[in-house]
């Protein structure tokens, strides 16, 4: 057993709460009547629709593309008819432009043929990735092909696969790794070819020993000369899945503030993204399906569901037998960084990793009090910032002075607010400070 690695500074260890879903195999959810596909599912410019109302589309057909700027195309998750090009509820923004498709349940399933990717050039592979609409599934949805074409002066020598899945409750990546280990490893090889590197490390937290085992075997099977893929078990600590923390945990390298991982010769991809890349390159199947963990004590039947992008939360709830009366909070994403939603009409996007239905005893609704300067947030902050000072300054209407405490380095992991004994909404204070402070 290799020694467990982790990042050096800060971090917290919230209750993992993965037991509810960790052992549930990925289950394909039946396609609902209607899908709402939000046009802006990635960082960059949102897609413009390439279809019109009442058009018929087939599964996997492009329905939106980005003409100018950063972005990837959007594909129809199902065959059906474009019902509307309007707006949908959105977890972060109130509403967002979307395409509504009425599903044609009669349509014949689309067949994808396997191709030999090893003969393709890196350029061709990259184009396939872009065409497949691949974005960073674990994170904010950064277009993957951009990430895979690092600046010319950066010397990339390592690929890291992020299988940490440090957020509590979520088990989607865990199940993907268990059930599709070969696809993930194959996806990694594709990425390695695109980047031209021979080293790949897959970081998995030690609370997923079965995944470490399965992935380790899969990696060993393909490893050889010029392709070295190893699994690196990691200590269980939040936010290990954050890019910079993962890089430090596995390689010991520090990414400077405001810089990309390529600055230290590393590219990080999520394991689910690697799997999606495999699908896109080998089968030409674009990204329109997503494994989502549905968990929490507030849902009748927790599950790891493979759902179509655009499926609404309400459909999932119906499929899983409804919610319990104790339900107090619905979160899209993980409990540490996800967004609480007030409506069930929100559709799943490419980056949705989980939907949590939490009851009151799982969340903390204690009202916050004044900072007691215990300094726990300083210890918890993985970036070495001073959340308490930021918050105190914001409260005293001095948000402009917070840049000195590193407010712009904050990626809002929520470790500080998790640990705070005064229950202060530190992330909210940081967001306010970011708005008001000047760099």
């Amino acid at each position, binding site marked *: 057993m290799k020694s467990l690695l982790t990042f050096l*500074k800060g971090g917290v260890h*919230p209750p993992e709460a993965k037991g509810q879903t960790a052992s549930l195999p990925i289950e394909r959810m039946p396609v609902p009547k209607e899908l709402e596909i939000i046009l802006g599912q990635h960082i960059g410019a949102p897609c413009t629709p390439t279809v019109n109302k009442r058009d018929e589309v087939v599964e996997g057909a492009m329905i939106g593309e980005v003409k100018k700027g950063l972005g990837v195309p959007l594909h129809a998750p199902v065959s059906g008819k474009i019902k509307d090009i309007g707006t949908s509820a959105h977890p972060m923004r109130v509403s967002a432009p979307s395409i509504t498709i009425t599903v044609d349940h009669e349509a014949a399933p689309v067949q994808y043929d396997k191709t030999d990717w090893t003969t393709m050039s890196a350029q061709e592979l990259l184009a396939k990735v872009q065409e497949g609409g691949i974005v960073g599934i674990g994170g904010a949805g950064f277009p993957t092909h951009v990430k895979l074409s690092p600046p010319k002066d950066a010397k990339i020598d390592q690929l890291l696969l992020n299988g940490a899945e440090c957020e*509590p409750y979520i088990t989607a990546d865990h199940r993907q790794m268990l059930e599709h280990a070969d696809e993930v490893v194959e996806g990694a090889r594709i990425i390695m070819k695109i980047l031209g590197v021979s080293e790949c490390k897959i970081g998995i937290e030690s609370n997923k020993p079965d995944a470490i085992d399965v992935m380790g075997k899969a990696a060993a099977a393909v490893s050889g000369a010029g392709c070295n893929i190893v699994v690196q078990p990691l200590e269980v600590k939040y936010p290990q899945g954050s890019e*910079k923390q993962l890089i*430090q945990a596995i390689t010991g390298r520090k*990414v*400077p*503030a*405001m810089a990309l991982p390529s600055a230290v010769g590393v590219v990080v991809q999520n394991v689910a993204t690697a799997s999606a890349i495999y699908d896109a390159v080998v089968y030409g199947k674009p990204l329109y399906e997503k494994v989502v963990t549905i968990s929490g004590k507030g849902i009748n039947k927790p599950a790891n569901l493979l759902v179509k992008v655009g499926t609404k939360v*309400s459909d999932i*709830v*119906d499929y899983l037998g*409804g*919610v319990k009366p104790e*339900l*107090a*909070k619905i*979160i899209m994403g993980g*409990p*540490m960084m*996800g*967004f*609480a*939603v*007030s*409506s*069930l*009409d929100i559709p799943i996007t490419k980056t949705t990793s989980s939907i*949590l239905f*939490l009851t009151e005893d799982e*969340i*903390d*609704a*204690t009202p916050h*009090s*004044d900072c*007691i*300067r*215990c*300094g726990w947030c*300083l210890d918890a*902050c*993985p*970036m*070495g910032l*001073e959340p*308490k000072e930021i918050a105190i300054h914001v409260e005293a209407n001095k948000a402009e002075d917070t840049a000195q405490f590193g407010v712009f*380095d904050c990626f*809002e992991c929520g470790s500080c*607010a*998790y*640990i*705070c*004994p*005064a*229950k202060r*909404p530190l*992330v*909210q204070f940081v*967001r306010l400070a970011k708005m008001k402070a000047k760099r």
Partner: protein
Amino acid sequence: MQAPESQSLPHRDWIVSVSPHVKSNETVAKIMWTVVACLMPPLFLSVFIFGVQTLIITAVSVISCVAVEYVSQKALKRPVSIMDGSAVLTGVLMAFVIPPGVSIFLPVLGAVMAIYIAKHLFGGLGFNIFNPALMGRAFLLATFPVAMTSAWLAPVDGFAIFSYFASGVDAVSTATPLAVMKEQGMAKFVEMFGSGTSLYTSFFLGWRPGCIGETSGLLLVLGGAFLIYKKYITYHIPVSVLGSIAVFTWIFGGEGWFGGDPILAVVTGGAILGAFFMATDYVTGPSTKTGQVVYGIGIGALTVIIRLKGGYPEGICYAILLMNPLSSVIDGFFKPKRFAGPVGGAK
């Protein structure tokens, strides 16, 4: 907003708040009450060796602190937070640093200084600059110098506590070990308290005159160790305070160099109480670990200076008060290390 479509959904509003949605189960109240609980064993020992008087003083101190907290918060139109235990803790700590033989009137006045002036005028818990309990003590020491420096009781034989109830015999007043050492010299000290290992053990166990809560090093260390185990405090401040007291006393405490008695320095006076329960106060101490070590060494050095050269036999209370305002300066010097510097900076 559209009503939920699904029939299976009960009709109610979901809580919408900013991430993170799960929080640790530590709360300010939990911390405060735990610290209070850790201070109970020394208090009971104190009742045992000094008599019920100590319990009465502590109770008065706690009640008046809570009362002043309540009144202050009402008067200043702030939410009343007496249940978070911080006023109770201040009350217990303030009682712990006053002699057992004082009038019960003293802690009432001390509470006004500690809670109203030193805490609520600054904005309440979290904004005070000086440790309220110690500010209360400093105020009492300035106001009632005689009582605060002479109302010491000699520890009674373990069972005499019961005869105290029976006969109501007044406790015997005496002087604290440090005061004897300072004013009457080492010879007198040895005559009164003995020397060697038995002295250390009896002092460490708490069988000596002193403030209500400071005598029992053992129970205080156990309480402090529990807090460290609970991760409510870290070892940095207690170790650096006690370590520097021991080292500086060893260097400067005797005739010539390196002649002091480091063990005695740690087990007498309020060193252990101060190190584990006063200096570790979150609000008035630095937050960074390096800063805490520097802060602790500062407290230790000032304590030794006051003990050896100053006007008071014991100096840790003033040492902590003097270091309190410096904690923000220290934090400024020892900012937490950023994850990484800006681009182009040294890696």
